[in-house]
């Protein structure tokens, strides 16, 4: 089984020579273990009993009625252990790390969900763990910082650049370059140098496989459309991967922040140009000289000026449509879903809901939509309450 290095022109391995042999080693281990029944059994066991899979596919009737249209199903990744889809990938990569004999785990995090999931998985395997997190994100995702510390991880604040996910990833890569012989770097999205985009997609594809089975069991037909938010793009790739060859519309929702024309957004596909960031060629927010621009989003997990290379490819191919919603639209959806369905979504996932709400008139009663509810919103309650004026 060979692992893709490129998706069309996108992807590649634009990283210092020092870590290229480690990427080769990772590719080899991944290809070997993917076909190994023992590894697969371990992974299946962890996903079932530790992560709590399969996650439900929930028919959100009140939301559908409110929108006056389609049957809306929510893929409940918010019910996975630690509260987001990120754990699917981290338990898988931790298994790889252990099999490869690595003694130390590092990761970057934006919203803190990937950091929490990595810290959780490292604790499960008894390995020391360091999480890089931008200072700005530490301030707005306090709950997750405390969780990581409780889980025994060291949280390393990153003060450079925009002090968000991009800079956390820079420092995680620098750590990895320095400690590559014993350290495993758990990348949290379908981004980074090959083979990471393929590996993360593989571990997240469980979302799509389950959703496919569940929707066929419930409705006996394929959905009309799948909707997922896109930061780096892992929850979207995970869901989409099982439907790429079917006649199903696929929509990725980026962060429009304060508006696409304000320059304060995270819409790398809609407003970026081809470029190299964090080891792969993809759409990137950058200036004319290739300096990477600061992204902006109310949601720390979407506050990233790049996107996974496979998304750039799927965009160019026209297989997935990418659109965006603003901070305000996401907040409204956050409130709506909480009140209508009793589910407080992560602000990231609220972007996917907001897209559906915004374009409700495009859907008919016969339409069958699955929205990936990638995470739960506990981590965002404080920030949302402040923005909504519920606390000062």
């Amino acid at each position, binding site marked *: 089984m060979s692992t893709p290095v490129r998706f069309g022109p996108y992807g590649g391995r634009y990283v210092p020579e020092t870590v290229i042999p480690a990427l080769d080693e990772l590719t080899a281990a991944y290809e070997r273990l993917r076909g190994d029944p023992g590894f697969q059994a371990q992974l299946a066991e962890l996903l079932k009993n530790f992560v709590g899979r399969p996650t439900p596919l929930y028919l959100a009737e009140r939301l559908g009625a409110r929108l006056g249209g389609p049957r809306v199903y929510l893929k409940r990744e918010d019910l996975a252990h630690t509260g987001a889809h990120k754990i699917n990938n981290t338990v898988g990569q931790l298994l790889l790390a252990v099999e490869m004999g690595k003694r130390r785990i590092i990761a970057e995090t934006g919203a803190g969900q990937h950091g929490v999931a990595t810290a959780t998985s490292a604790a499960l395997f008894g390995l020391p763990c360091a999480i890089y997190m931008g200072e700005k994100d530490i301030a707005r995702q306090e709950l997750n910082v405390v969780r990581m510390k409780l889980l025994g991880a060291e949280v390393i604040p990153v003060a450079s650049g925009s002090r968000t996910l991009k800079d956390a990833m820079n420092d995680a890569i*620098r750590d990895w370059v320095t400690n590559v012989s014993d350290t495993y770097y758990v990348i949290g999205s379908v981004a980074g140098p090959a083979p990471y985009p393929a590996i993360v997609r593989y571990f997240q594809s469980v979302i799509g496989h389950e959703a496919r089975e569940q929707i066929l069991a419930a409705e006996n037909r394929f959905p009309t459309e799948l909707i997922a938010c896109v930061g780096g793009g892992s929850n979207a790739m995970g869901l989409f991967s099982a439907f790429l060859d079917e006649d199903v519309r696929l929509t990725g929702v980026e962060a429009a922040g304060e508006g696409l024309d304000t320059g304060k957004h995270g819409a790398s596909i809609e407003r970026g140009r081809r470029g190299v960031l964090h080891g792969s060629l993809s759409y990137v927010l950058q200036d004319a000289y290739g300096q990477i621009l600061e992204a902006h989003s109310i949601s720390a997990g979407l506050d990233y000026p790049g996107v996974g290379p496979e998304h750039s490819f799927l965009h160019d191919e026209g297989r997935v449509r990418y659109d965006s919603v603003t901070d305000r639209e996401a907040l409204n959806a956050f409130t709506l879903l909480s009140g209508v369905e009793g589910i407080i979504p992560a602000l990231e996932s609220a972007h996917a809901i907001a897209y559906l709400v915004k374009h409700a008139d495009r859907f008919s009663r016969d339409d069958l939509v699955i929205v990936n509810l990638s995470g739960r919103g506990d981590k965002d309650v404080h920030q949302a309450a402040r923005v909504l004026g519920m606390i000062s």
Partner: protein
Amino acid sequence: MSRLEQLFRERQKKSLLMPYITGGYPTVHECRHLLEAFIAGGADMIEMGVPFSDPLADGPVVQASTQKALDEGVTPDDVLAIAAGFSGRLPVVLLVYYNCVFAYGQERFAAAAAAAGVAGLIVPDLPVDEADEFINICRSRGLDPVLLVAPTSTAERIRMIAAQASGFIYCVSVAGVTGARTSLSDQLPDFLGRVRAVTSAPLAVGFGVSTPEQAAMVAEHADGVIIGSKLISMVADAGDIDIAVKAVESFLSQVNEVIK
């Protein structure tokens, strides 16, 4: 023969002195003064960085210098202009992250570098596997695409890199990012030996060299000694450009004495 090959071949010294500065640091004007100090201190080649927002092969010292230059509004064009002012006096090699080259256009960047008299380009995040097109473009412009090898490079990769090498091979002294280190790896001679075994190209060592003693040790095994973070720290610590210029010149002179 390229200008860099000639420089190494015709050298009278054990090892060449190759100081690094971030282009346009601390300002475009002051950077020129520092380059004068490089020459006065005995530099054989100038290595100059093109400031990039996300320099992931660099440690905190070079990162801070890069940020300062970007805050000053320094662009790749400014760095090329500085290079043009010195390339007639000694060879200038640019260290540039791939996205800066890519955004400029590989062809256009190579043409601009050649027009500025630049001798070679080092792209720290473009490993040999990704570099075919870039290497061809450089060669067609008479630029040496300088490749890096690391202590973690396998024998097979060292051979791959050596087969494409031009000018010199940049040997990264340790697994890690740029930055002064109190001691260099005792694996260095062994690592350089592994590279020598497969190539006759000159070897320059960088990352971590920060004292004349370390430079002398490196010079026993390598054809060039690259010093970067140490010099930038000296500039940052001096706070005043005249003091910095004197300190840099005097430090490089000391190093030059022991690597001759």
